[in-house]
């Protein structure tokens, strides 16, 4: 995951300031940056949530 994010931020530098507050999700669960991605995995960037009321 760490590697994938580095590539992403390299391609889209505008993401960089947000990464510290961004959580990661794989298969609809939160995951650590140390997680290993498999072929075809969809990595989701989750900005700080603000649901509820």
């Amino acid at each position: 995951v760490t590697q994938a994010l580095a590539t992403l931020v390299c391609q889209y530098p505008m993401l960089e300031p947000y990464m510290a507050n961004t959580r990661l999700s794989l298969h609809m669960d939160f995951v650590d940056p140390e997680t290993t991605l498999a072929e075809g995995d969809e990595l989701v960037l989750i900005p700080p949530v603000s649901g509820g009321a």
Partner: protein
Amino acid sequence: MFRVTTEPLSVQQVNDLVKRPTDGAVVIFDGIVRNNFDGRPVHYLEYEAYAAMAEKKLAEIGAEVQQKFAIGEIAMIHRIGRLDIGESSIVIAVAAPHRHAAFEACAYAMDRVKAEVPVWKKEFFADGADHWVNQN
């Protein structure tokens, strides 16, 4: 029941989902769109969600709450899309044999929702400005 919907929420409907004859209490949290953010007038809100994951997280929180407290059924419905002042954004209903567990479980569930469910709120102010709410 754990859902994300664009339809207006009905407190009575969510209440009816959880109530059983063995329960002596139903505690409901009805989250309402407030007309201001720290005193600045708010015109309306928009909620967006990663809906599939949000429903999964709501269900996980529901299971966690049932493990932690002596309650019966729990239901959580989150509304998304445009919401006007005074409308309900989330309704949580917790039924339990006794009231204390229901009160505690309901408050705990709401705290977990705020921390873990991928839903985002954007406030549109009366003066025309807008911003995404960032609670971190």
